């Protein structure tokens, strides 16, 4: 019956495996960031006709293996990886995303690592000061993210067209096509379930009865928004796996792409 004297706030009384989720996410994000950095500067094995890696889309420099818009937009003076022009946009969108903020504040900053678990730091200012006040630009990162959804969709359409021996193109479906399609669906769900999108399309209004379209859009996005975190993780994984598949095909590690060409 002896009492144990200890200030409660400094103690973790949780009995469950509270560290598992932040630890797993920390590993996932670290793997993705390292993988992205490596493939982003690799400048090879990102195209295996007709598949283009999402890391390199849109491919806009003169040294591209495949021009998304038919012609290069950046001239021959650029001799580094084309992905460097693109990667900042999805990176900024995800880095300022409300879901990812929650995830990395927990996993890396430990503020807090889990609910009812003490903060790692003695002082805390949240998002009131630089650099975290910059999270408020999130809605501006959403617009390029929407453009990327359309561009990746265009890549998927191209991925249904396979080159023929006569030099033309034939309709077909390959494993790479399906991976790219799944990837763009997941990225689309992630992008259009965004909290800023939900706000911009209707959430900013107090009165819906004079704005039926805004109300419908807000209602639809609200449904998607409930799974925003799941879409965030699944689309992250799908981007990595799609690139990996195309990369391994291009490198010859995977000997052939299962496909049906009509």
């Amino acid at each position, binding site marked *: *019956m*002896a*009492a*144990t*004297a*200890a*200030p*409660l*706030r400094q103690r*973790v*009384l*949780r*009995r*469950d495996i509270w560290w598992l989720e932040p630890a797993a996410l920390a590993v996932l994000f670290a793997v993705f960031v390292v993988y992205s950095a490596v493939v982003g500067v690799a400048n090879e094995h990102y195209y295996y006709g007709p598949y283009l890696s999402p890391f390199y889309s849109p491919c806009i420099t003169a040294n591209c293996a495949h021009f998304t818009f038919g012609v290069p937009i950046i001239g021959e003076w650029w001799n580094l990886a084309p992905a460097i022009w693109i990667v900042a946009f999805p990176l900024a969108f995800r880095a300022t995303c*409300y879901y990812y*903020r*929650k995830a990395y*504040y*927990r996993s890396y900053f430990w*503020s*807090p690592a889990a*609910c*009812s678990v*003490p*903060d790692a730091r003695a*002082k*805390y*200012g*949240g*998002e*009131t000061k630089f650099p*975290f*006040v910059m999270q*408020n*630009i*999130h*809605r501006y990162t959403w617009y390029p993210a929407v453009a990327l959804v359309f561009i990746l969709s265009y890549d998927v359409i191209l991925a249904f067209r396979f080159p023929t021996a006569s030099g033309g193109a034939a309709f077909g479906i390959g494993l790479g096509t399906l991976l790219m399609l799944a990837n763009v669906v997941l990225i689309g769900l992630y992008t259009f379930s965004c*909290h*800023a999108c*939900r*706000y911009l399309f209707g*959430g*900013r209004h*107090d*009165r*819906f*009865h*004079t704005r039926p379209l805004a*109300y419908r859009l807000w209602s639809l996005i609200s449904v998607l*928004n*409930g799974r925003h975190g799941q879409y965030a993780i699944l689309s992250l994984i799908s981007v990595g796996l799609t690139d990996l598949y195309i990369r391994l095909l291009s490198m010859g590690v995977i000997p052939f792409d299962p496909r049906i060409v009509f």
Partner: protein
Amino acid sequence: MTARSGSNGGARDVTVRVWRGEDRASGGFVQYDVPADPGMVVLDVMFRVQALRAPDLAVRWNCKAGKCGSCSAEINGRPKLMCMTRVSSLPEGEPITIAPMATFPVIKDLVTDVSYNYEKAKTIPAFRPAPLEPDGTRRMYQEEVDRVQEFRKCIECFMCQNVCHVIRDHEENKEAFSGPRFFVRLAELEMHPLDTHDRIELTRAKHGLGFCNITKCCTEVCPESIHITDNAIIPLKERVVTEFYDPLAWAKRRLFGQRPRQLGEKEPAAPSDR
């Protein structure tokens, strides 16, 4: 019934470690074994501890139905209502740890002083409805009411306040930060179709919305399943962005000679909306 250490005349025993004391420095956990019955909730166990082992154990409770929000505590380290937590839902074969809410000063044992919340509540301006329409009524529409009605489910158990690390781990932030419960209240009023009081600057400057780093613990612990983060805090953050951080909105205000709304300034009338 969860199997616990030993038995007592057919009833199983349950072992609880209850935090006892009148201040955090000298208080600590005391272990009790009491007989438990099937279907018991943790609050029942506290009653049994009071009846059989420690009649001076202080526990705050009222409805025992999950609606008054009085019996908030930390059960095995997680904020929960004692009256809504079945003993059978907790891990078997180990003591149940019951502690007072960590964010608030202890009065005695499991009873905390939650007056911080009442002081914060006083700083939120009351509902200020639009003028009556020509027919002497006010109208609002179901689709508008649905959104704010979610926020009315709050039972003020203050578990979201308790779990919020901004004040739980940083006492110094209590002055500048009001906590999730009051962002729910602010959202309820701010999004109300008939309210005319602007609370955006108030939310940012006086209630410290920027301190929130949306780690969603408030949502996790809410016994009413209010989507505090997604439906109250983040929409408020987006409104603050429009008012204070959006360069296009800022340019528009400059271009058209508008200025940011000031604390408590009445929202401009929008007759077409009424």
